[in-house]
């Protein structure tokens, strides 16, 4: 790197950390929410006679 490795490589490492960091946090949050929803749905199905009220209400919030 012509004597500039100490400046060039950290730039790429920072990019890698930033890009992977946001990607992993986003994936983890998505998986966590999907788990929460899956956990809530069976309970609701036990108490209601089918249909997906949660979905209907969520859609109702966003016409």
């Amino acid at each position: 790197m012509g004597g500039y490795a100490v400046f060039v490589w950290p730039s790429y490492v920072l990019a890698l950390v930033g890009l992977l960091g946001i990607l992993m946090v986003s994936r983890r949050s998505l998986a966590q929410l999907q788990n929460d929803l899956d956990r809530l749905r069976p309970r609701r199905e036990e108490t209601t006679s089918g249909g997906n009220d949660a979905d209907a209400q969520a859609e109702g919030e966003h016409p």
Partner: protein
Amino acid sequence: MHALANPNRFLKLADAIQPWAVGICILCFAIGLPYGLVFSPADYQQGDTVRIMYIHVPSAWMGLFCYGVMATGSAAYLIWRHPVANMAARASAPVGAMFTALCLLTGMLWGQPMWGTPWVWDARLTSMLVLFFLYLGYMVLGDAFEHREQGDKAAAILALVGSVNLPIIKFSVDWWNTLHQPSIFSMEGVSVDTAMLAPLFLMVGAFQSYYVVVVLMRIRAQVLQAKVRSARLLQAAE
């Protein structure tokens, strides 16, 4: 645009886009990274430090682009109450903040060997730092209210007010004297050789498709969050 206001309809479209965005992202990184790091030539003046450009410039463009999406989404939310536009704005904020931080940090790493200092308080650098604080402010303000809708409104107004900073960043190198080099693209043409322009565009493509992948993921998370909230409310009401 109003057809996409329904989150479930939007997610169907996102399902179709997501695999393409992932493929383009991987392809652009797979070609752009070795091209930029190894096969592109060193600059005749700046030597190998020019390789920082392949991270720094796409990050700067993405920092501005994400804010543009945030401001447009916020406007659509305030005018038409478009829920997916607000979700897109919310989803873009952390990604834009990361790109802006990356631009500032790589700029410091580039500035140290070329200018002899990592930071100067000139118009370009300062306005970019203001952009980073606008992102932070947007995220904090959006979550600062007890009622989510109030937070959404306040954050949307901040995003719109802050968009004044975008042309300041873009034209700062023309309006004021600065250590920062002028824009690559100007009325006189392109100031970078094709051998450097190709990896630069590949990295822009990689960052842009990465943004699409992550923002769609984050919008999906917000839709799920709304469903979880509703399910909990229904459960509590029984």
